């Protein structure tokens, strides 16, 4: 599945930080995404899964180049092999790369749905719009409604439609399914799958790990603003042994069907990131090295992982058993 020539989007060492002023003039940088790696190939759905506050939505903004003005971006994003510059992002937004936003508040409250589905580009895709509405089971009068007249589920389907109406090659769906009924969610995911099968790609940002496992080809596990592991979705079905990173394993063990065991501690806040590995403070296998340096990304068993344990054979490690 991992053929280099079909790579659509490549993100290397992406860091995003916000300039903040605290106590008047004291300036601090709040790092929200740290050295993130992600590759997305044509034909696949990549889920970006992580808990709230891990910076998933900001990743979408960074790819589209719509971060707020006080944000600084470091690292590289390549789209179709070429560096994604600000000018190129501007060109590709809404044509090549489309976003499915999180909630109905992303729709203009005073504009009818029809006009919002059509977008500002001409000619209007009237036929396509009709088909999408039909597939999603949206009433025929939906284009004449205002956002506040939509139910939660209708709004979600409209949001997904705004992206599917374009001819985008890459779709970034930010929590697209909550609020939809199971059937509607499945229909949306089927549409995503169809897109992928047409040679396009979908990034599915979600906190629903079950959904990610069930529908994505690969799952990137997000923790404190970085991807700690990217694994084929099948690894999650094969149990925690098939997984690589201690956080991913802990996540797997915390799922209701796998024992429902939580781990201690909480995700570090953006202003208080640890020096070394971002997961080290909670990691049961942490070493001194983990506390001091962030590990590089490694390819392990067909996935990518950011953990020191894959630098050395397991038994040589000086193991600290944390609380």
């Amino acid at each position: 599945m991992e053929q280099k020539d079909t790579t659509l989007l490549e993100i290397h060492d992406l860091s995003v930080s916000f300039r903040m002023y605290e106590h008047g003039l004291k300036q601090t940088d709040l790092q929200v995404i740290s050295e993130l790696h992600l590759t997305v190939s044509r034909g696949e759905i990549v889920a970006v899964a992580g808990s709230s506050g891990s910076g998933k939505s900001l990743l979408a903004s960074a790819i589209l180049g719509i971060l707020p003005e006080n944000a600084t971006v470091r690292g590289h994003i390549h789209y179709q092999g070429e560096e994604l510059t600000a000018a190129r992002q501007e060109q590709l937004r809404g044509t090549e790369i489309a976003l499915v936003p999180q909630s109905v508040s992303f729709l203009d409250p005073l504009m009818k749905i029809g006009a919002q589905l059509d977008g500002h580009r001409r000619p209007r895709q009237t036929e396509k719009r009709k088909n999408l509405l039909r597939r999603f089971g949206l009433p025929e009068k939906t284009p004449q409604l205002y956002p506040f007249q939509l139910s939660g589920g209708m709004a979600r389907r409209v949001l997904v439609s705004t992206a599917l109406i374009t001819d985008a090659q890459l779709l970034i769906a930010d929590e697209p399914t909550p609020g939809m009924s199971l059937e509607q969610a499945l229909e949306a995911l089927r549409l995503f799958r169809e897109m992928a099968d047409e040679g396009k790609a979908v990034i599915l940002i979600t906190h629903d790990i079950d959904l990610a496992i069930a529908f994505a080809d690969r799952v990137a596990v997000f923790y404190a603003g970085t991807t700690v592991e990217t694994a084929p979705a099948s690894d999650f079905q094969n149990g925690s042994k098939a997984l690589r990173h201690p956080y991913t394993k802990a996540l797997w063990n915390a799922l209701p069907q796998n024992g429902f065991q939580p781990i201690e501690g909480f995700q570090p806040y953006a202003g208080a990131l640890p020096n070394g590995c971002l997961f080290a403070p909670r990691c049961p296998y942490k070493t001194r090295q983990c506390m001091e340096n962030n590990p590089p990304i490694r390819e392990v068993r067909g996935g990518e992982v950011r953990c020191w344990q894959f630098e050395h054979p397991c038994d040589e490690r000086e193991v600290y058993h944390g609380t």
Partner: protein
Amino acid sequence: MSELLKRSVRIFFTYGIRTLSLLFAVSVVSFVLISASPINPVQQYLIGLGTAVSPQQRAELEDYWGVNEPPVQRYFGWLSEVLHGNLGESALYRRPVAEIISERFWNSFALMLCAWLLSGVMGFGLGCIMGMYQDRWADKILKKCCYILSAVPTFWLGLVLLLVCSVWLKWFPIGFSAPIGVRSEDVTLGQRIYHLILPAFTLSLMSFSNIALHTRQKLSDVLSSEYVLFARARGEGKWTILRRHGLRNILFPALTLQFASFAELFGGSVIAENVFSYPGLGSAVSAAGLNGDVALLLGITLFSAVFVSFGNMAANILYGIIDPQIREVEA
């Protein structure tokens, strides 16, 4: 559309009742204030006359102005006349109050309409520019101008404009609504407009900064909203966003503000008309106040109350036309 009509009729009805009770309250309060005022209308009249009068003449004058009657009796006398459709006679001008109002209102109306349109258009336009270039130099300069304008008193601004544009540069006439020495039938529209420009501009400067700053704030709220972020994500440019989402979402509060500014407009016109010796309601009301002309003062006060509540009603009806959410909730 019939929903809209029904809504408008209902608003009209509720506003009718509200306006009537408001008018009653306004008349009572104004009357109490005039009664409590230290101005003795007869004394004022005599000062204006400049000659000595005998005690008998003075008593006749007092009778004419009605100052010796108890205030409550005077009020009810006035009220019963008003309910019969008679606003009374101005003691100062010796003419029916209704006639003075209808004559002067058109002068004031022209002035206020020009000022209202000018401040609305300028305020909205500059507000949009400030919002679009938020925190850039254009915004910073315009914002400072707005702050200065809203801090400066209107009468002072009027005097400065008069001094610069009329006295020094001689671009505009010094006062009045028509040239001196021309019969009122012979005054041309051009001459009227020419006399109107400076007072209207002064008056518009008063409310314009308010509208500009509100528009700026609202536009900056809109631009930082999630739906604008999404519009950007879909590839809309800055000006497309202003056209598609900005105007739509800021026009509504701006219009509300614009219609709610009728009261300020009336208040400002009193000052502007006095500075420019412009014969409108504003100068008449200050003359009535200073000379204790109760009938005229009450007549104009009631008239302006009707005018202002009409503005508020218009704003309310417009709510329903522009904002679908309110339309839906009220329907």
